[in-house]
């Protein structure tokens, strides 16, 4: 039983890191622009499909396909930003529709270009087993991307907290006019935020392609998962994303081990609700002053 539980915890942490990778880009844009990019999952998917094409047609290793995927996805992300920036009123709500529409376009575009077949990376190395302490099993791809995920969370966190542009990004989110008065060009920082979000989506896409199976209809599901983690984390909190994602991963895998896999989604949702009801602004959200 102990061995089972330990493995379950380990698997949970690994899925958590992978969830974090998917959620981070969404959380960034959400936290800094109050825009819920409903096409985020589709951006991730796009990255995955580029990686697939690169492997299939050019024989590139998934990691080696990153530059190509980056170019396409970041470009698309910036295009999404450009469209969102055209919204004049009630951006928070209207961007929902706009990005939903973009998601529909991307999903169907992917369907038309790549057909509905499932795909996954074929390089065997990624799927070979790594065994830690003789009892903990993982796919090498999972370890690689968990590592990358944690690194990226750290990097984004540092960037937002400590760098000039990261801070400016938060400032724009907090008070646009005041940020302008500090010499910040809000549009520039927002493009930056979308571009970084596109970068994160690309890496997440390559990770999914490598470790899991991709198909065109999954974009929406990815967005929902990412969004749940983002909210669980507390709006815009980067460390929260990692914590929330790992918590979700661990709860899901423990549910499988201790109860049944049929209940895993249920457990995830219950966790989400319990956290929110106890902490209405998420794990790392800070309550606002009133009065």
């Amino acid at each position, binding site marked *: 039983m102990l061995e089972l539980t330990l493995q379950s915890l380990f698997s949970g942490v690994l899925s958590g890191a992978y969830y974090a990778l998917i959620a981070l880009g969404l959380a960034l844009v*959400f936290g800094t622009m109050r825009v*819920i990019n409903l096409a985020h999952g589709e951006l991730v998917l796009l990255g995955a499909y580029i990686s697939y094409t690169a492997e299939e047609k050019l024989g590139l290793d998934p990691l080696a396909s990153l530059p190509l995927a980056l170019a396409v996805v970041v470009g698309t992300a910036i295009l999404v930003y450009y*469209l969102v920036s*055209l*919204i*004049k*009123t*009630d951006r*928070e*709500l*209207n*961007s*929902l*529709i*706009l990005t*939903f*529409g*973009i*998601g*529909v*376009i991307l*999903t*169907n*575009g992917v*369907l*038309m270009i790549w057909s509905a077949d499932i795909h996954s990376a074929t390089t065997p190395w990624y799927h070979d087993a790594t065994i830690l302490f003789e009892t903990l099993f993982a796919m090498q791809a999972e370890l690689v991307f968990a590592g990358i995920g944690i690194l990226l969370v750290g990097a984004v966190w540092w960037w937002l907290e400590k760098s000039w542009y990261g801070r400016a990004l938060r400032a724009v989110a907090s008070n646009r006019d005041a940020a302008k008065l500090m010499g910040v060009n809000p549009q520039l920082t927002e493009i930056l935020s979308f571009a970084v979000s596109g970068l994160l989506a690309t890496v997440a896409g390559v990770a999914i392609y490598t470790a899991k199976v991709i198909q065109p209809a999954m974009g*929406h599901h990815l967005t*929902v998962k990412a*969004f*749940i983690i983002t*909210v669980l984390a507390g*709006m815009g909190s980067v460390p929260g994303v990692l914590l929330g994602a790992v918590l979700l991963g661990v709860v899901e895998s423990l549910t499988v081990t201790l109860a049944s896999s*049929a*209940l895993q*989604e*249920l457990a995830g*949702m*219950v966790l*989400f*609700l319990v956290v*929110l*009801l106890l902490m*209405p*602004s*998420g794990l790392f959200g800070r309550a606002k002053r*009133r*009065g």
Partner: protein
Amino acid sequence: MNDKIKIALFLVLAYIAVPLALGSNAYVIGLIVAALTIGGIAVAWALLGNLGGMVSFGHAAFFGVGAYVSALLTLKGGWPVFPSMLMAGIGAAIASVATMPALRLRGPYFALAILAYAEIFRILATEAKPITGGAAGLLSIPRLPIVLGLDFGSKLGGYFVILTIVAASMAVYHLIRSSTYGLALKAMHDSEDATRVVGVNSTLLKAWMLAVSAFITGVVGAFNAHYINFLEPDYAFAGQWTTLAIVSAIFGGYRTVTGPLLGALVVYLVDQLAFKPILPQGHQIVLGVLLGAMILFSPGGLMPLLLAKKKGPAHAA
């Protein structure tokens, strides 16, 4: 034109002209019924969104609960269809009470909490096999009955039923909106503390709006169950009930009473009747483009766009 005349015109058009013109075309009536179904949820969603200031990503929760309540009452309880549709509304409203802890949350937090409830309901419906039939669902749900010689189970009969549900919901929406409750609700949106310190019990008001919205959605869900005669968890709690309703409401203009319905009709019918025949597979792309263009060129939705034509530029900036 006077509002009363407009309403009368709408009713005449909907109850007399449309059936006369299209009644024989089962396919088109079927599409209109489907559009009205989405429209009903969209009205309920907009009521909550516009009045309660609460964006919900999980109205499928109430749709599904309503559908199951009515289906089970008729199938297992032997209830007649119309009374159980009413009970379905009440059932959904009761389910909304279970979701009320979420009223403490705001913005996206609330939106997703309701989505989580929808997921939880879906999984519970899947797991509660003895009652709900589990993943296999319920087949042969009783159709709408024949009352006084009118066959509500026919295509056209279904049309009249859903039309009445939607029209009644819009009337309720309008009444609430034009009362002082409507003002208070509108105010709570972005300034809840400010509203409370002048004596508004915002929690209670929001709870009521959630319950009313859930009630409407539940009745619509019940209608759909008796109309399609089939139910399974994945279908009853499908995300599309929520997304299509949101898209329709915002597309049509969720700040207006007629916008959500108009949005649903346009989004659904234009997609199915105009784009699908031209682009059998890619028509959803056109829908996506249309949505995007709408938001960019008329952020308030279709309704304000139509109104603005007549009134000229309403107000600057």
